[in-house]
């Protein structure tokens, strides 16, 4: 049987997940090779419209103007939710703060709130930890939390926010420093740190991050991750997308710190 190649391009957030899937799929269907590249969600969707790739990865839903452009090119983009991404807010286990609103988180990370007392905690300075700017998680946190989802908002992270190169760096600091607050993909949270329940308004309700609150679309800092194809997929591409939704592939989702779409 001839070698077949699936071109897969898009979101940098998903690129590691897509690579892990592609590698595992080699053991399932050795005759199918999958070429994965990053470049961003917009790049991936543009490539679907241009017809240069088979599957586009996107960490956001396709925009109405992109659908229009696709229609103009005679393509009907088909959407698949392939995983979910939830960001947990983590603090030291001794920190008495149990809940924070998105507004409070935005104020902490933009430097308006600098003491835990101002958000119902002890009289301690806040040490805000973030992933480096090259991380997809950083960009998502900037858009969804610091800017509260408002695309016209130009608020930036405070220069005092610590930028750590790895999840391990954030974990190590949160575990030992009662002043620290950090964020990371839900899959990276361990038992020796405390997660904060997040709400939209001071009166509540507040939701703990978990696979169930994420899949019920209650937890506020979570998003769906997508793959798009041009029209209904057929043949090899359809088989691959079907396999992605199987438990074997969804286990990889959990290993990489994302939330599987079903338990």
């Amino acid at each position, binding site marked *: 049987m001839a070698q077949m190649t699936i071109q897969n391009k898009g979101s*940098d957030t998903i690129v590691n997940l897509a690579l892990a899937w592609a590698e595992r799929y080699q053991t399932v269907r050795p005759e199918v090779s999958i070429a994965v590249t990053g*470049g961003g969600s917009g790049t991936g969707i543009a490539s679907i419209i241009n017809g240069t790739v088979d599957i586009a990865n996107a960490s956001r839903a396709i925009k109405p103007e992109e659908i229009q452009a696709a229609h103009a090119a005679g393509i009907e983009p088909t959407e698949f939710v392939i995983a979910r991404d939830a960001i947990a807010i983590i603090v030291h286990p001794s920190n008495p703060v149990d809940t924070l609103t998105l507004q409070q988180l935005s104020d902490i990370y933009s430097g308006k709130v600098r003491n835990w007392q101002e958000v119902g905690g002890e009289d*301690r*300075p*806040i*040490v805000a930890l973030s992933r*480096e*700017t*090259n991380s997809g998680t*950083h*960009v998502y946190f900037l858009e969804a939390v610091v800017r509260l989802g408002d695309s016209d908002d*130009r608020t*930036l*992270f405070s*220069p*005092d*926010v*610590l*930028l*750590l*190169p790895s999840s391990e*760096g954030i974990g*190590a*600091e949160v575990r*030992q*420093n009662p*002043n*620290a607050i950090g964020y990371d993909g839900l899959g990276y949270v361990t038992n020796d740190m405390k997660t904060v329940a997040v709400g939209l308004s001071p009166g509540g309700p507040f939701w703990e991050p978990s696979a169930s609150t994420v899949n019920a679309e209650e937890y506020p800092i979570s998003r769906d991750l997508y793959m798009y194809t041009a029209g209904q997929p057929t043949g090899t591409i359809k088989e691959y997308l079907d396999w992605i939704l199987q438990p074997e592939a969804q286990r990889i989702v959990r290993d990489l710190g994302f939330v599987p779409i079903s338990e």
Partner: protein
Amino acid sequence: MAHSDQPLSPTPQLSAAPGSGKRGTLAETLISRAIQVTGISTVVLVLLIFVFLIREGLPAFVQVPLADLLSARWYPIEDYFGLLPLIAGSLIITVGAAVIALPLGVATAIFIAEIVPDWVRDILKPMVEILAGIPSVVIGFVGMLVIVPLFRVAFDTPTGLTAFTGIVLLAWMALPTVVSVVEDVLDTVPRTYRDAGLALGMTRWQTIAKIVVPAGKSGILTALMLGVGRAIGETMTVMMVTGNAPRIPSGPLDIFRPARTMTATIAAEMGEVAQGSTHYHVLFAVGLTLFVITFAINLAAAAVVFRRTKRAERMLS
């Protein structure tokens, strides 16, 4: 070096053989050619790196106005390319590390070379060399898990991820370099100098402080240069322990606050940056700045060493 007048040094004899070319065997010619090629290639490589840095870095100065490059905000994903916090971070951490490592290193070297008996020296020297061999990521890891929590409590700062933590770890890493270089230099100070000092009725301490150390001054400067080079170029350790917050320090006590260095910035951001983008060119401009700073330091140190050598030679003649 400054000690060309040493009668016992074997180096001049060895290098004299291939120099007298004509009578050399084929093997000698080959070896001398090979050495020539390695020597020249070092210079060529440095030049090529410089050319590459200029080629990739210069577009940044065209694409980003100079006023923006000299601003105080570094947030490249939104096109804020202010280099000042990065330069400030690198300078504070490098100078701090040198200030700690140089006196400690010189003192350790004097102790090993001049004071302890031979058998202690035989234990201490290899231990210093082992210290030099510890990979920086291991030091960073120890720093992150042990030193960072310790410093947060000891200095009562909001976090242990501070410039000072980086300074201490870098000083620790630069120390073996300083000790080895200074120790080697003290070794080359002729026995007769010490004997002369002692014969004049000087104490051992006076001999060390007034004769041996001044005679090895050029070597101490070389050690400083190498130590600074090690500190300013170090990446992994500082990235792991300094918190990487691109803030401009507002006072001397800010060494107990986080800082972001140029090297950590390049390492953290280069992997994900789109090739040919403004951000990409700015990162090369950061590398170019780093290169120019190290080059200037080396040049300054070389100039000082050169001048000192000539004066020392004048005094001896």
